[in-house]
């Protein structure tokens, strides 16, 4: 038996050592770290084929998913995990640039391989450049966009009139008491509310939305907090992922959410007979992006850059869009043709996005996915809050509120005292027992002593 046990432990330790140190030949592996449900998975196999065709080397893609930006960053920053290509949100890209966690993307693919990196819409490239953390830095050397969108009102067209959601002041409309769901994302909500709170100044030309969203001041944090507090009666909850469900069931009438989520909800509910629509209110909002980057700890940056290239191909971009419902940053004519739909009656000006292409200023295209020029002009890019992060989070905490009320407090105090009393009673009983025992012992020895004398 003893031998068997030691054999078992030796085997255990051996497995430990082996798994901790084993690695496949790393140059044949590409580790991709992306959001869940954010890729047409068939493209993985096609990429492996394409890569081998272009370079003559085989490749195996390990595709993994994450759900929280900051935790992904912790893994890379502290854990130095060797993911080759990652798709963070724009503010995390900015943070990674600031912390020097990214390596430049090698854009030299040789004479025979097409380079699709230029397919990204100049509009997006410009926005990315706004994230430069040092003078002279070319952000596009480090990050290539993937998907983008806006934040706005997803609303039920049967229960809510379009005029009511033209402005963020819908949050104060008492008709919507307990009917509005807020996205639990303090950055996006801050960006939105800061535009609302300073709308007059924006109209007067005193300040631009871009600078409002980029420069976070204590005063603005206070204004936003105040604005949110006043909306609390209408807010039914703070959701991260269940907002779409409650909209589908018509339990909530309005949901402050992202355009991609809105697309999902609109399509899903259409099948069930519920009509939803999405709008970006007039005071302003933010436009968000995510993009592919190569961390400095990547072990296969070559394959990583080929991956990014592959994703920029127009056809692949369209396939991703159709699969996941979000909007790609690729602004080529092929994408434009694929996404226009003549069944849509109105036309929208997308010339800022599909720049230089004829007819881009009046496209029959879905305005939720591709906002008209007038809409995008009131959207600003979110930045990494850096040192204001803490204050923002505290503000958000205060807004979401406290639940401790007098009933609960009395309950706690009652239970606590009861427990203390029980423990005290217990100790008292023990003490008394011991005392009785000692007394009895004393009497007994005394008796024995007396008896001894008499005998």
């Amino acid at each position: 038996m003893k031998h068997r046990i030691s054999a078992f432990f030796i085997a255990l330790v051996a497995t430990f050592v082996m798994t901790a140190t084993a690695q496949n030949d790393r140059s044949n592996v590409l580790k991709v770290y992306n959001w869940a449900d954010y890729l047409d998975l068939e493209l993985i196999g096609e990429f492996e084929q394409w890569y081998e065709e272009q370079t003559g080397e085989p490749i195996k893609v390990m595709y993994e998913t994450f759900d929280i930006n900051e935790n992904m960053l912790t893994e890379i920053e502290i854990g130095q995990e060797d993911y080759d290509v990652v798709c963070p949100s724009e503010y995390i890209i900015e943070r990674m640039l600031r912390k020097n966690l990214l390596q430049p993307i090698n854009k030299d693919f040789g004479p025979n391989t097409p380079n699709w990196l230029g397919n990204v819409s100049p509009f997006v490239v410009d926005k990315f450049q706004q994230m430069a953390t040092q003078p002279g830095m070319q952000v596009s050397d480090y990050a290539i966009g993937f998907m983008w969108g806006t934040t706005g009102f997803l609303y039920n067209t049967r229960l809510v009139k379009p005029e009511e959601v033209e402005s963020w002041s819908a949050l104060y409309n008492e008709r919507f008491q307990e009917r509005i769901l807020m996205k639990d994302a303090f950055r996006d909500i801050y960006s939105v509310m800061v535009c609302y709170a300073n709308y007059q100044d924006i109209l007067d030309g005193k300040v631009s939305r871009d600078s409002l969203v980029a420069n976070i001041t204590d005063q603005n944090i206070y204004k936003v907090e105040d604005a949110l507090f006043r909306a609390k009666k209408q807010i039914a909850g703070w959701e991260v992922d269940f907002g779409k469900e409650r909209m589908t069931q018509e339990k909530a009438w309005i949901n402050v959410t992202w355009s991609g989520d809105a697309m999902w909800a609109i399509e899903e509910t259409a099948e069930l007979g519920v009509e939803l629509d999405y709008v970006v209110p007039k005071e302003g909002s933010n436009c968000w992006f995510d993009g592919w980057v190569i961390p400095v700890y990547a072990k296969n940056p070559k394959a990583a850059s080929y991956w990014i290239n592959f994703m920029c191909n127009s056809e692949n971009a369209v396939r991703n869009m159709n699969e996941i419902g979000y909007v790609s940053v690729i602004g080529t004519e092929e994408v434009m043709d694929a996404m226009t739909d003549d069944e849509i009656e109105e036309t929208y000006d997308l010339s800022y996005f599909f720049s230089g292409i004829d007819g881009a200023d009046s496209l029959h295209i879905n305005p939720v996915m591709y906002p008209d020029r007038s809409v995008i002009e009131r959207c600003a890019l979110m930045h990494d809050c850096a040192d204001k992060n803490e204050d923002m989070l505290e503000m958000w905490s205060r807004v979401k509120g406290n639940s401790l009320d007098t009933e609960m407090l009395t309950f706690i105090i009652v239970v606590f005292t009861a427990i203390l009393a029980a423990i005290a009673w217990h100790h008292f009983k023990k003490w008394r027992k011991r005392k009785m025992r000692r007394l009895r012992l004393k009497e007994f020895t005394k008796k024995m002593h007396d008896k001894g004398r008499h005998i």
Partner: protein
Amino acid sequence: MGKRSNWALPYIIFMAIFVVAPLLLVGYYSFLDNEGALSLYNFEKFCTSYDTINTFIYSIGIAMMTTLICILIGYPAAYFMANSEYGTPKVMAMLFILPMWINILLRTLSTVALFDFMKLPLGEGALIFGMVYNFLPFMIYPIYNTMQKMDKSLIEAAQDLGANRRRVFRDVIMPLSMPGVYSGVVMVFMPTISTFAVSELLTMNKIKLFGTTIQENINAGMLNYGAALSLIMLIIIGLTSFFGSDDDESNETGGLL
């Protein structure tokens, strides 16, 4: 009792490596402020933050309520299952833990659907329901186990000595089952404070528990503050249980002597 206390040695070594050492590492982060310098900044922040303390006390309240309800519901359940005179099938105990094998997110979402279906409002009541739902098996199991092995002769002896049913229960069965209750309380009270999935879904995040606060901070990149918060929680709760477990030695003698 001789060297038998050494039997705990393998586990102690394991805990030193995988519980204490990691905790020290996390603890290190809690003493760093935002610039990375050593300071008590995070702890000061907690003490001056009305919200966080509020949430903490509230979470303790919810945990107490959940634990009490679990005892109220679970103790009779364990009693009925352990006593063969009630004729419960043997596998009934397993039935209580089976729902736990379904992923918590899915379970909670369908609880939400259940509440919607029955037109009940989400909120504090739903939260307590969800918590009790999740932790009831953890209360039932230890009590059930303790009762199963209860020495029948003690009960018979008490009955022979003329005790009626109620006295038998109060003075024999209850004290003897206390170790099980204690285990159950520990397994329910402590995790309740740190569970956040239930409160997120069953109150639509309107009610925050302390676990949510810690989660929020870490997910927003404030690892230092989150680490400090959990360290504070550990110290407060740990110490109270540390001093509260004085009752152990009385349990050894069964509380009869």
